[in-house]
Protein backbone atom coordinates (compact mmCIF):
# COMPACT_ATOMS: atom_id res chain seq x y z
CA UNK A 1 0.00 0.00 0.00
CA UNK A 2 1.24 3.46 -0.84
CA UNK A 3 2.42 5.60 2.05
CA UNK A 4 -0.49 7.69 3.32
CA UNK A 5 -0.03 11.45 2.93
CA UNK A 6 -0.45 13.19 6.24
CA UNK A 7 -0.61 16.71 7.64
CA UNK A 8 -1.29 18.07 11.10
CA UNK A 9 -4.70 19.63 11.65
CA UNK A 10 -3.32 21.71 14.50
CA UNK A 11 -0.63 23.17 12.29
CA UNK A 12 -3.23 24.00 9.64
CA UNK A 13 -5.19 25.69 12.41
CA UNK A 14 -2.22 27.79 13.47
CA UNK A 15 -1.52 28.89 9.90
CA UNK A 16 -5.17 29.66 9.14
CA UNK A 17 -5.52 31.54 12.41
CA UNK A 18 -2.57 33.72 11.50
CA UNK A 19 -4.19 34.52 8.14
CA UNK A 20 -7.54 35.26 9.78
CA UNK A 21 -5.75 37.50 12.25
CA UNK A 22 -4.24 39.53 9.43
CA UNK A 23 -7.66 40.18 7.96
CA UNK A 24 -9.56 40.92 11.14
CA UNK A 25 -8.13 42.71 14.11
CA UNK A 26 -11.08 41.73 16.25
CA UNK A 27 -9.58 38.26 16.42
CA UNK A 28 -7.85 37.59 19.71
CA UNK A 29 -6.32 34.31 20.81
CA UNK A 30 -6.04 32.70 24.21
CA UNK A 31 -4.22 29.62 25.34
CA UNK A 32 -3.49 27.94 28.64
CA UNK A 33 0.27 27.35 28.51
CA UNK A 34 0.08 25.49 25.20
CA UNK A 35 0.91 28.07 22.56
CA UNK A 36 3.47 25.82 20.92
CA UNK A 37 1.47 22.59 20.96
CA UNK A 38 -1.71 24.23 19.69
CA UNK A 39 0.26 26.14 17.04
CA UNK A 40 -1.29 29.40 18.21
CA UNK A 41 2.30 30.56 18.49
CA UNK A 42 2.28 31.82 14.89
CA UNK A 43 -0.50 34.21 15.80
CA UNK A 44 1.22 35.11 19.07
CA UNK A 45 4.44 36.02 17.27
CA UNK A 46 2.63 38.15 14.70
CA UNK A 47 0.13 39.81 17.03
CA UNK A 48 1.56 39.74 20.55
CA UNK A 49 -0.91 42.33 21.84
CA UNK A 50 -3.88 40.24 20.70
CA UNK A 51 -2.56 37.04 22.19
CA UNK A 52 -3.18 36.12 25.82
CA UNK A 53 -1.50 33.27 27.56
CA UNK A 54 -3.70 32.53 30.56
CA UNK A 55 -1.41 29.99 32.21
CA UNK A 56 -2.69 26.65 33.47
CA UNK A 57 -6.12 28.06 34.29
CA UNK A 58 -8.66 26.85 31.76
CA UNK A 59 -11.82 27.79 33.69
CA UNK A 60 -10.62 31.38 33.88
CA UNK A 61 -9.57 31.28 30.23
CA UNK A 62 -13.12 30.44 29.15
CA UNK A 63 -14.60 33.23 31.26
CA UNK A 64 -12.06 35.72 29.95
CA UNK A 65 -12.79 34.62 26.38
CA UNK A 66 -16.48 35.26 27.04
CA UNK A 67 -15.71 38.73 28.39
CA UNK A 68 -13.64 39.53 25.32
CA UNK A 69 -16.38 38.29 22.98
CA UNK A 70 -18.98 40.33 24.83
CA UNK A 71 -16.78 43.37 24.26
CA UNK A 72 -16.69 43.01 20.48
CA UNK A 73 -13.71 40.70 20.07
CA UNK A 74 -13.66 37.42 18.16
CA UNK A 75 -11.82 35.14 20.57
CA UNK A 76 -10.26 31.77 19.82
CA UNK A 77 -9.42 29.76 22.95
CA UNK A 78 -7.13 26.82 22.44
CA UNK A 79 -5.70 24.04 24.51
CA UNK A 80 -5.79 20.24 24.52
CA UNK A 81 -9.28 18.78 24.14
CA UNK A 82 -9.17 17.28 27.60
CA UNK A 83 -8.56 20.73 29.10
CA UNK A 84 -10.75 22.62 26.62
CA UNK A 85 -13.93 20.61 27.00
CA UNK A 86 -13.49 18.70 30.24
CA UNK A 87 -11.96 20.99 32.82
CA UNK A 88 -13.94 24.16 32.04
CA UNK A 89 -17.19 22.51 30.96
CA UNK A 90 -19.16 24.32 33.63
CA UNK A 91 -17.73 27.70 32.67
CA UNK A 92 -18.50 27.00 29.03
CA UNK A 93 -22.06 26.12 29.97
CA UNK A 94 -22.67 29.14 32.20
CA UNK A 95 -20.96 32.04 30.49
CA UNK A 96 -20.59 30.88 26.88
CA UNK A 97 -23.34 28.45 25.84
CA UNK A 98 -26.24 29.71 27.97
CA UNK A 99 -25.84 33.35 26.91
CA UNK A 100 -24.81 32.24 23.39
CA UNK A 101 -21.49 34.08 23.39
CA UNK A 102 -19.47 33.50 20.20
CA UNK A 103 -16.28 32.03 21.64
CA UNK A 104 -14.34 29.76 19.28
CA UNK A 105 -12.97 26.88 21.32
CA UNK A 106 -10.42 25.10 19.17
CA UNK A 107 -9.20 21.96 20.89
CA UNK A 108 -6.17 20.01 19.75
CA UNK A 109 -4.92 16.60 20.90
CA UNK A 110 -8.33 14.90 20.87
CA UNK A 111 -8.74 11.15 20.80
CA UNK A 112 -6.52 8.10 20.99
CA UNK A 113 -4.00 9.46 18.50
CA UNK A 114 -2.54 11.58 21.29
CA UNK A 115 -0.62 8.34 21.72
CA UNK A 116 2.09 7.88 24.32
CA UNK A 117 0.72 10.39 26.85
CA UNK A 118 -2.01 7.90 27.71
CA UNK A 119 -5.61 8.00 28.89
CA UNK A 120 -5.31 11.17 30.98
CA UNK A 121 -4.75 13.11 27.76
CA UNK A 122 -6.81 11.07 25.30
CA UNK A 123 -10.07 13.00 25.23
CA UNK A 124 -12.77 10.61 24.03
CA UNK A 125 -15.84 12.29 25.50
CA UNK A 126 -15.65 15.85 24.18
CA UNK A 127 -18.07 15.55 21.28
CA UNK A 128 -20.66 14.23 23.72
CA UNK A 129 -20.24 16.82 26.43
CA UNK A 130 -20.07 19.69 23.99
CA UNK A 131 -22.95 18.77 21.73
CA UNK A 132 -25.30 18.26 24.66
CA UNK A 133 -25.03 21.99 25.42
CA UNK A 134 -27.80 24.10 23.87
CA UNK A 135 -26.45 26.78 21.48
CA UNK A 136 -23.12 24.98 21.06
CA UNK A 137 -21.86 24.02 17.60
CA UNK A 138 -19.44 21.11 17.24
CA UNK A 139 -17.09 20.66 14.30
CA UNK A 140 -14.68 17.81 13.59
CA UNK A 141 -12.63 18.52 10.45
CA UNK A 142 -11.57 15.48 8.47
CA UNK A 143 -8.05 16.70 7.78
CA UNK A 144 -5.71 19.67 7.63
CA UNK A 145 -7.29 21.24 4.55
CA UNK A 146 -10.78 21.04 5.98
CA UNK A 147 -9.38 22.58 9.18
CA UNK A 148 -8.23 25.56 7.14
CA UNK A 149 -11.73 25.95 5.70
CA UNK A 150 -13.31 25.62 9.13
CA UNK A 151 -11.08 28.27 10.70
CA UNK A 152 -11.96 30.67 7.90
CA UNK A 153 -15.65 29.95 8.44
CA UNK A 154 -15.74 30.27 12.22
CA UNK A 155 -13.62 33.43 12.19
CA UNK A 156 -16.71 35.16 10.82
CA UNK A 157 -19.32 33.11 12.63
CA UNK A 158 -20.86 35.23 15.38
CA UNK A 159 -24.17 33.41 15.84
CA UNK A 160 -22.97 31.33 18.78
CA UNK A 161 -20.12 29.38 20.31
CA UNK A 162 -18.21 26.74 18.39
CA UNK A 163 -16.13 23.78 19.52
CA UNK A 164 -13.62 22.47 16.99
CA UNK A 165 -11.89 19.14 17.54
CA UNK A 166 -8.38 18.63 16.18
CA UNK A 167 -5.67 16.02 16.58
CA UNK A 168 -2.10 15.81 17.75
CA UNK A 169 -0.71 13.35 15.24
CA UNK A 170 -0.59 14.18 11.53
CA UNK A 171 -3.94 13.25 9.96
CA UNK A 172 -4.27 11.40 6.66
CA UNK A 173 -5.03 13.84 3.85
CA UNK A 174 -8.61 13.67 2.58
CA UNK A 175 -8.88 16.94 0.68
CA UNK A 176 -6.26 18.28 -1.73
CA UNK A 177 -7.36 21.81 -0.97
CA UNK A 178 -9.66 23.49 1.56
CA UNK A 179 -13.21 22.36 0.67
CA UNK A 180 -16.25 24.63 1.00
CA UNK A 181 -17.60 24.71 4.53
CA UNK A 182 -20.98 25.84 5.79
CA UNK A 183 -23.41 24.73 8.49
CA UNK A 184 -24.74 22.07 8.55
CA UNK A 185 -21.74 20.24 7.14
CA UNK A 186 -21.94 16.67 5.95
CA UNK A 187 -20.64 15.65 2.55
CA UNK A 188 -20.88 12.46 0.56
CA UNK A 189 -17.26 11.72 -0.34
CA UNK A 190 -17.90 8.41 -2.04
CA UNK A 191 -21.39 7.53 -3.24
CA UNK A 192 -22.81 4.04 -2.75
CA UNK A 193 -26.05 2.10 -2.41
CA UNK A 194 -25.68 -0.68 0.16
CA UNK A 195 -24.64 0.98 3.39
CA UNK A 196 -24.07 4.51 4.67
CA UNK A 197 -20.83 5.00 6.56
CA UNK A 198 -20.80 8.17 8.63
CA UNK A 199 -17.34 9.22 9.77
CA UNK A 200 -15.65 12.25 11.28
CA UNK A 201 -12.11 13.45 11.86
CA UNK A 202 -9.29 10.98 11.41
CA UNK A 203 -11.77 8.21 10.73
CA UNK A 204 -12.89 9.69 7.42
CA UNK A 205 -9.80 8.49 5.57
CA UNK A 206 -10.08 5.11 7.28
CA UNK A 207 -13.71 4.87 6.17
CA UNK A 208 -12.70 5.69 2.60
CA UNK A 209 -10.13 2.88 2.69
CA UNK A 210 -12.75 0.49 4.03
CA UNK A 211 -15.10 1.61 1.27
CA UNK A 212 -12.52 0.56 -1.33
CA UNK A 213 -12.09 -2.80 0.38
CA UNK A 214 -15.84 -3.33 0.49
CA UNK A 215 -16.07 -2.48 -3.21
CA UNK A 216 -13.69 -5.34 -3.91
CA UNK A 217 -16.25 -7.57 -2.24
CA UNK A 218 -19.07 -6.06 -4.28
CA UNK A 219 -20.45 -4.04 -1.40
CA UNK A 220 -21.25 -0.49 -2.40
CA UNK A 221 -20.70 1.77 0.63
CA UNK A 222 -21.47 5.46 0.75
CA UNK A 223 -19.00 7.44 2.86
CA UNK A 224 -20.22 10.65 4.43
CA UNK A 225 -17.88 13.08 6.12
CA UNK A 226 -19.90 14.51 8.98
CA UNK A 227 -17.90 17.65 9.67
CA UNK A 228 -20.44 19.36 11.88
CA UNK A 229 -21.82 16.97 14.47
CA UNK A 230 -23.96 19.89 15.57
CA UNK A 231 -25.76 21.22 13.67
CA UNK A 232 -26.21 17.81 12.13
CA UNK A 233 -27.01 17.78 8.44
CA UNK A 234 -30.22 15.78 8.80
CA UNK A 235 -31.07 16.02 5.14
CA UNK A 236 -27.84 14.45 3.95
CA UNK A 237 -28.08 11.70 6.56
CA UNK A 238 -31.71 10.86 5.80
CA UNK A 239 -31.19 10.99 2.05
CA UNK A 240 -28.33 8.55 2.29
CA UNK A 241 -29.99 6.10 4.65
CA UNK A 242 -33.25 6.23 2.71
CA UNK A 243 -31.24 4.88 -0.19
CA UNK A 244 -29.10 2.32 1.67
CA UNK A 245 -31.30 1.21 4.57
CA UNK A 246 -28.18 0.45 6.58
CA UNK A 247 -25.83 2.62 8.62
CA UNK A 248 -22.47 2.46 10.28
CA UNK A 249 -20.75 5.23 12.22
CA UNK A 250 -17.06 5.52 12.98
CA UNK A 251 -15.35 8.02 15.23
CA UNK A 252 -12.29 8.42 17.43
CA UNK A 253 -14.55 8.92 20.44
CA UNK A 254 -16.61 6.89 22.88
CA UNK A 255 -19.50 5.15 21.19
CA UNK A 256 -21.67 6.89 23.78
CA UNK A 257 -22.53 10.50 23.10
CA UNK A 258 -20.63 11.24 19.92
CA UNK A 259 -21.27 11.04 16.20
CA UNK A 260 -22.82 7.57 16.48
CA UNK A 261 -25.27 8.75 19.08
CA UNK A 262 -26.16 11.82 17.05
CA UNK A 263 -26.91 9.67 13.98
CA UNK A 264 -28.91 7.17 16.07
CA UNK A 265 -30.97 9.94 17.66
CA UNK A 266 -31.88 11.29 14.25
CA UNK A 267 -32.62 7.93 12.66
CA UNK A 268 -34.61 6.69 15.66
CA UNK A 269 -36.96 9.62 15.22
CA UNK A 270 -37.04 9.95 11.45
CA UNK A 271 -36.07 6.67 9.86
CA UNK A 272 -35.58 3.71 12.23
CA UNK A 273 -32.60 1.81 10.88
CA UNK A 274 -30.06 -0.63 12.26
CA UNK A 275 -26.87 1.28 13.10
CA UNK A 276 -23.46 -0.19 13.88
CA UNK A 277 -21.37 2.22 15.96
CA UNK A 278 -17.61 1.88 15.72
CA UNK A 279 -15.63 3.83 18.26
CA UNK A 280 -14.09 3.34 21.68
CA UNK A 281 -16.33 0.88 23.51
CA UNK A 282 -16.99 2.70 26.79
CA UNK A 283 -13.46 2.41 28.12
CA UNK A 284 -10.36 4.51 28.65
CA UNK A 285 -7.31 4.50 26.41
CA UNK A 286 -3.67 3.85 27.32
CA UNK A 287 -0.15 4.70 26.19
CA UNK A 288 1.02 3.51 22.82
CA UNK A 289 1.71 4.69 19.31
CA UNK A 290 -1.19 6.41 17.58
CA UNK A 291 -1.60 3.77 14.88
CA UNK A 292 -1.26 0.92 17.38
CA UNK A 293 -3.96 2.43 19.56
CA UNK A 294 -6.42 2.89 16.71
CA UNK A 295 -5.97 -0.72 15.76
CA UNK A 296 -6.07 -1.99 19.37
CA UNK A 297 -9.34 -0.18 20.08
CA UNK A 298 -10.92 -1.36 16.86
CA UNK A 299 -10.82 1.87 14.87
CA UNK A 300 -9.53 0.25 11.72
CA UNK A 301 -10.47 -0.28 8.15
CA UNK A 302 -10.72 -4.00 8.93
CA UNK A 303 -13.21 -3.35 11.73
CA UNK A 304 -15.34 -1.19 9.45
CA UNK A 305 -15.38 -3.90 6.79
CA UNK A 306 -16.39 -6.54 9.33
CA UNK A 307 -18.97 -4.20 10.83
CA UNK A 308 -20.50 -3.32 7.49
CA UNK A 309 -20.90 -6.98 6.59
CA UNK A 310 -22.47 -7.64 9.97
CA UNK A 311 -25.03 -4.89 9.41
CA UNK A 312 -25.82 -6.21 5.95
CA UNK A 313 -26.22 -9.83 7.06
Amino acid at each position, binding site marked *: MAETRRAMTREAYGRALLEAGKEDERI*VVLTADLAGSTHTKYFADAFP*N*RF*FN*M*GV*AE*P*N*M*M*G*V*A*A*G*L*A*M*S*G*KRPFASTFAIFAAGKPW*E*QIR*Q*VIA*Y*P*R*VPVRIVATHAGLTVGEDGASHQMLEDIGIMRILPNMNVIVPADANETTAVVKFIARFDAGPVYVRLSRAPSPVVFDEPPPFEFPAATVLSPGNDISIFACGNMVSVALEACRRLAEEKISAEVINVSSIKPLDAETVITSVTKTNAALTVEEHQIIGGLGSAICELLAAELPTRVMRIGVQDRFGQSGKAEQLLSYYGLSEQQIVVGAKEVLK
Partner: protein
Amino acid sequence: MDSITILKKKATEIRCNVLRMIHHAKSGHPGGALGMADILTVLYYRYLRHDPLRPDWEERDRFLLSNGHTCPVLYAILADQKYFPDEEIWKLRRLGGMLQGHPSTAWEVPGIEVSSGSLGNGLSVAVGMAMAAKLDQKGYRVFCQISDAECQAGQTWEAATAAVHYRLDNLCIFLDWNQCQIDGHTEEVMDVGDIAAKWAAFGWRVHEIDGHNYDEIIAAFDSFAQTAGSNKPTLFAAHTILGKGVSFMEDDPNWHHGAPNDAQLKEALASLLVVS
Protein backbone atom coordinates in the same frame (compact mmCIF):
# COMPACT_ATOMS: atom_id res chain seq x y z
CA MET B 1 -30.54 67.21 52.10
CA ASP B 2 -26.86 66.53 51.58
CA SER B 3 -25.86 64.03 48.98
CA ILE B 4 -25.06 61.24 51.42
CA THR B 5 -28.48 61.52 53.02
CA ILE B 6 -30.03 61.28 49.58
CA LEU B 7 -28.00 58.18 48.78
CA LYS B 8 -28.97 56.58 52.08
CA LYS B 9 -32.64 57.21 51.44
CA LYS B 10 -32.25 55.69 48.01
CA ALA B 11 -30.57 52.61 49.49
CA THR B 12 -33.48 52.20 51.90
CA GLU B 13 -35.95 52.40 49.03
CA ILE B 14 -33.90 49.76 47.16
CA ARG B 15 -33.87 47.50 50.22
CA CYS B 16 -37.64 47.82 50.55
CA ASN B 17 -38.06 46.80 46.91
CA VAL B 18 -35.70 43.86 47.37
CA LEU B 19 -37.92 42.58 50.15
CA ARG B 20 -41.13 43.28 48.27
CA MET B 21 -40.03 41.45 45.16
CA ILE B 22 -38.71 38.41 47.04
CA HIS B 23 -41.89 38.34 49.12
CA HIS B 24 -43.94 38.50 45.94
CA ALA B 25 -41.85 35.81 44.21
CA LYS B 26 -42.08 33.68 47.37
CA SER B 27 -38.44 32.72 46.92
CA GLY B 28 -35.06 34.34 46.56
CA HIS B 29 -31.99 35.44 48.48
CA PRO B 30 -32.57 38.55 50.61
CA GLY B 31 -29.50 38.43 52.88
CA GLY B 32 -26.71 39.28 50.45
CA ALA B 33 -28.95 41.61 48.45
CA LEU B 34 -29.62 43.77 51.53
CA GLY B 35 -25.96 43.63 52.50
CA MET B 36 -24.70 45.11 49.24
CA ALA B 37 -27.41 47.78 48.84
CA ASP B 38 -25.21 50.62 50.11
CA ILE B 39 -22.20 50.02 47.87
CA LEU B 40 -24.33 49.39 44.80
CA THR B 41 -26.41 52.49 45.46
CA VAL B 42 -23.26 54.61 45.64
CA LEU B 43 -22.03 52.91 42.46
CA TYR B 44 -25.18 53.37 40.40
CA TYR B 45 -26.25 56.79 41.68
CA ARG B 46 -22.85 58.41 41.88
CA TYR B 47 -19.96 56.70 40.10
CA LEU B 48 -21.03 54.46 37.27
CA ARG B 49 -20.78 56.07 33.83
CA HIS B 50 -23.83 54.62 32.15
CA ASP B 51 -27.00 55.49 30.33
CA PRO B 52 -30.13 53.45 31.04
CA LEU B 53 -31.54 54.58 27.68
CA ARG B 54 -28.52 53.08 25.91
CA PRO B 55 -27.67 49.90 27.78
CA ASP B 56 -25.37 48.83 24.92
CA TRP B 57 -23.45 52.11 24.83
CA GLU B 58 -19.90 51.00 24.08
CA GLU B 59 -18.19 53.45 26.38
CA ARG B 60 -20.29 52.56 29.43
CA ASP B 61 -18.74 51.31 32.63
CA ARG B 62 -19.66 47.69 33.21
CA PHE B 63 -20.96 46.23 36.45
CA LEU B 64 -20.92 42.45 36.70
CA LEU B 65 -22.65 40.68 39.54
CA SER B 66 -20.72 37.47 40.10
CA ASN B 67 -22.60 36.17 43.12
CA GLY B 68 -25.76 36.14 41.08
CA HIS B 69 -28.14 35.03 43.80
CA THR B 70 -28.02 38.56 45.24
CA CYS B 71 -29.62 39.87 42.03
CA PRO B 72 -32.77 41.36 43.60
CA VAL B 73 -30.70 44.36 44.69
CA LEU B 74 -29.44 44.84 41.14
CA TYR B 75 -32.90 44.33 39.66
CA ALA B 76 -34.32 46.91 42.09
CA ILE B 77 -31.68 49.44 41.11
CA LEU B 78 -32.01 48.80 37.36
CA ALA B 79 -35.79 49.14 37.56
CA ASP B 80 -35.45 52.35 39.55
CA GLN B 81 -33.06 53.68 36.92
CA LYS B 82 -35.61 52.80 34.21
CA TYR B 83 -33.52 50.16 32.47
CA PHE B 84 -36.79 48.25 32.29
CA PRO B 85 -40.36 48.83 33.51
CA ASP B 86 -41.13 48.38 37.21
CA GLU B 87 -43.68 45.69 36.37
CA GLU B 88 -40.85 43.31 35.53
CA ILE B 89 -39.84 43.00 39.16
CA TRP B 90 -43.22 41.47 39.98
CA LYS B 91 -42.43 38.72 37.48
CA LEU B 92 -39.18 37.83 39.23
CA ARG B 93 -38.59 34.05 39.16
CA ARG B 94 -41.82 33.46 37.22
CA LEU B 95 -42.17 31.48 34.01
CA GLY B 96 -41.62 33.76 31.03
CA GLY B 97 -40.25 36.65 33.09
CA MET B 98 -36.89 38.05 32.07
CA LEU B 99 -35.78 38.50 35.65
CA GLN B 100 -34.52 35.01 36.25
CA GLY B 101 -33.69 33.61 39.67
CA HIS B 102 -30.08 34.24 38.70
CA PRO B 103 -29.44 36.98 36.15
CA SER B 104 -28.53 36.20 32.59
CA THR B 105 -27.69 38.04 29.42
CA ALA B 106 -29.46 35.17 27.65
CA TRP B 107 -32.71 36.94 28.57
CA GLU B 108 -31.47 40.25 27.22
CA VAL B 109 -32.23 42.14 30.38
CA PRO B 110 -31.11 45.73 29.83
CA GLY B 111 -28.30 46.49 32.25
CA ILE B 112 -27.33 42.90 32.98
CA GLU B 113 -23.75 42.32 31.84
CA VAL B 114 -23.09 38.66 32.67
CA SER B 115 -24.85 35.37 33.25
CA SER B 116 -24.08 34.39 36.80
CA GLY B 117 -25.32 32.10 39.51
CA SER B 118 -22.59 29.53 39.47
CA LEU B 119 -20.17 30.99 41.96
CA GLY B 120 -16.70 31.89 40.76
CA ASN B 121 -17.57 32.63 37.15
CA GLY B 122 -18.19 36.37 37.06
CA LEU B 123 -14.74 37.71 37.80
CA SER B 124 -13.19 35.90 34.83
CA VAL B 125 -15.66 37.55 32.48
CA ALA B 126 -14.92 40.91 34.10
CA VAL B 127 -11.22 40.31 33.50
CA GLY B 128 -11.96 39.62 29.82
CA MET B 129 -13.93 42.86 29.52
CA ALA B 130 -11.20 44.86 31.23
CA MET B 131 -8.64 43.31 28.87
CA ALA B 132 -10.79 44.30 25.88
CA ALA B 133 -10.94 47.89 27.15
CA LYS B 134 -7.16 47.97 27.41
CA LEU B 135 -6.77 46.48 23.95
CA ASP B 136 -9.10 49.08 22.44
CA GLN B 137 -7.64 51.86 24.59
CA LYS B 138 -11.09 52.67 25.84
CA GLY B 139 -11.68 54.47 29.08
CA TYR B 140 -14.54 52.43 30.47
CA ARG B 141 -14.09 50.69 33.78
CA VAL B 142 -15.23 47.27 34.87
CA PHE B 143 -16.76 46.75 38.29
CA CYS B 144 -17.54 43.33 39.66
CA GLN B 145 -19.14 42.13 42.86
CA ILE B 146 -17.96 38.87 44.37
CA SER B 147 -18.63 37.21 47.70
CA ASP B 148 -16.28 35.97 50.38
CA ALA B 149 -17.53 32.45 49.73
CA GLU B 150 -16.40 32.83 46.12
CA CYS B 151 -12.91 33.17 47.53
CA GLN B 152 -13.23 29.47 48.31
CA ALA B 153 -13.41 28.79 44.56
CA GLY B 154 -10.21 28.15 42.64
CA GLN B 155 -11.35 30.06 39.58
CA THR B 156 -11.50 33.29 41.60
CA TRP B 157 -7.77 33.05 42.23
CA GLU B 158 -7.07 32.17 38.61
CA ALA B 159 -8.84 35.38 37.65
CA ALA B 160 -7.12 37.32 40.45
CA THR B 161 -3.75 36.20 39.10
CA ALA B 162 -4.61 37.09 35.49
CA ALA B 163 -5.91 40.56 36.40
CA VAL B 164 -2.57 41.41 37.99
CA HIS B 165 -0.57 39.82 35.16
CA TYR B 166 -2.43 41.89 32.58
CA ARG B 167 -2.19 45.06 34.72
CA LEU B 168 -5.91 45.74 34.80
CA ASP B 169 -6.06 49.03 36.66
CA ASN B 170 -9.47 49.56 35.05
CA LEU B 171 -10.96 46.72 37.11
CA CYS B 172 -12.53 47.17 40.53
CA ILE B 173 -14.05 44.42 42.65
CA PHE B 174 -16.40 44.75 45.57
CA LEU B 175 -15.82 41.84 47.89
CA ASP B 176 -19.00 41.25 49.87
CA TRP B 177 -17.30 40.12 53.06
CA ASN B 178 -20.32 39.23 55.19
CA GLN B 179 -18.85 36.00 56.53
CA CYS B 180 -22.02 34.08 55.77
CA GLN B 181 -22.84 31.45 53.19
CA ILE B 182 -25.63 29.00 52.64
CA ASP B 183 -24.40 26.36 55.07
CA GLY B 184 -23.53 28.79 57.85
CA HIS B 185 -20.82 31.21 58.86
CA THR B 186 -17.85 31.13 56.51
CA GLU B 187 -15.46 30.56 59.37
CA GLU B 188 -17.18 27.25 60.13
CA VAL B 189 -17.92 26.12 56.58
CA MET B 190 -14.50 26.88 55.08
CA ASP B 191 -12.50 29.60 56.69
CA VAL B 192 -11.08 31.97 54.11
CA GLY B 193 -9.03 33.82 56.73
CA ASP B 194 -7.82 37.34 56.16
CA ILE B 195 -8.97 37.65 52.57
CA ALA B 196 -7.97 41.30 52.36
CA ALA B 197 -4.39 40.25 53.02
CA LYS B 198 -4.67 37.44 50.47
CA TRP B 199 -5.80 39.79 47.71
CA ALA B 200 -3.06 42.24 48.62
CA ALA B 201 -0.54 39.39 48.44
CA PHE B 202 -1.80 38.60 44.94
CA GLY B 203 -0.83 42.13 43.94
CA TRP B 204 -4.13 43.98 44.20
CA ARG B 205 -4.71 47.45 45.63
CA VAL B 206 -6.96 46.67 48.56
CA HIS B 207 -9.22 49.10 50.39
CA GLU B 208 -10.62 47.53 53.54
CA ILE B 209 -13.84 49.37 54.29
CA ASP B 210 -17.07 49.20 56.23
CA GLY B 211 -19.52 48.39 53.46
CA HIS B 212 -22.24 50.42 55.16
CA ASN B 213 -20.21 53.53 55.92
CA TYR B 214 -20.81 56.02 53.12
CA ASP B 215 -17.72 58.09 53.83
CA GLU B 216 -15.55 55.00 53.52
CA ILE B 217 -17.37 53.73 50.42
CA ILE B 218 -17.05 57.10 48.71
CA ALA B 219 -13.40 57.43 49.67
CA ALA B 220 -12.70 53.99 48.16
CA PHE B 221 -14.43 54.94 44.89
CA ASP B 222 -12.58 58.25 44.81
CA SER B 223 -9.32 56.43 45.26
CA PHE B 224 -10.14 53.94 42.48
CA ALA B 225 -10.94 56.84 40.17
CA GLN B 226 -7.29 57.81 40.44
CA THR B 227 -5.72 54.43 39.78
CA ALA B 228 -5.34 54.80 36.02
CA GLY B 229 -1.70 54.18 35.27
CA SER B 230 -1.12 52.27 38.50
CA ASN B 231 -1.21 48.98 36.56
CA LYS B 232 -2.93 47.31 39.49
CA PRO B 233 -6.51 46.14 39.86
CA THR B 234 -8.46 47.33 42.88
CA LEU B 235 -10.51 45.46 45.45
CA PHE B 236 -12.79 46.90 48.09
CA ALA B 237 -12.72 44.40 50.95
CA ALA B 238 -16.10 45.46 52.24
CA HIS B 239 -17.15 44.31 55.67
CA THR B 240 -20.88 43.92 55.27
CA ILE B 241 -23.73 42.52 57.28
CA LEU B 242 -25.96 39.89 55.72
CA GLY B 243 -29.53 41.18 55.84
CA LYS B 244 -28.38 44.71 56.74
CA GLY B 245 -31.23 46.94 57.85
CA VAL B 246 -33.63 44.20 58.84
CA SER B 247 -32.87 43.33 62.43
CA PHE B 248 -34.20 39.78 62.38
CA MET B 249 -32.22 38.93 59.24
CA GLU B 250 -28.89 40.47 60.19
CA ASP B 251 -25.96 38.06 60.28
CA ASP B 252 -28.29 35.06 60.22
CA PRO B 253 -27.18 32.60 57.52
CA ASN B 254 -30.75 31.27 57.47
CA TRP B 255 -31.59 34.43 55.53
CA HIS B 256 -29.07 33.65 52.84
CA HIS B 257 -32.16 32.55 51.06
CA GLY B 258 -35.83 32.43 51.88
CA ALA B 259 -38.77 34.72 51.30
CA PRO B 260 -40.29 36.75 54.11
CA ASN B 261 -43.93 35.92 54.79
CA ASP B 262 -46.55 38.68 55.04
CA ALA B 263 -45.88 39.44 58.69
CA GLN B 264 -42.12 39.35 58.23
CA LEU B 265 -42.34 41.68 55.25
CA LYS B 266 -44.37 44.15 57.26
CA GLU B 267 -41.94 44.01 60.14
CA ALA B 268 -38.94 44.29 57.84
CA LEU B 269 -40.29 47.30 55.95
CA ALA B 270 -41.19 48.97 59.23
CA SER B 271 -37.71 48.48 60.63
CA LEU B 272 -36.09 49.82 57.47
CA LEU B 273 -38.31 52.88 57.29
CA VAL B 274 -37.85 53.74 60.96
CA VAL B 275 -34.08 53.87 60.57
CA SER B 276 -34.26 56.11 57.53
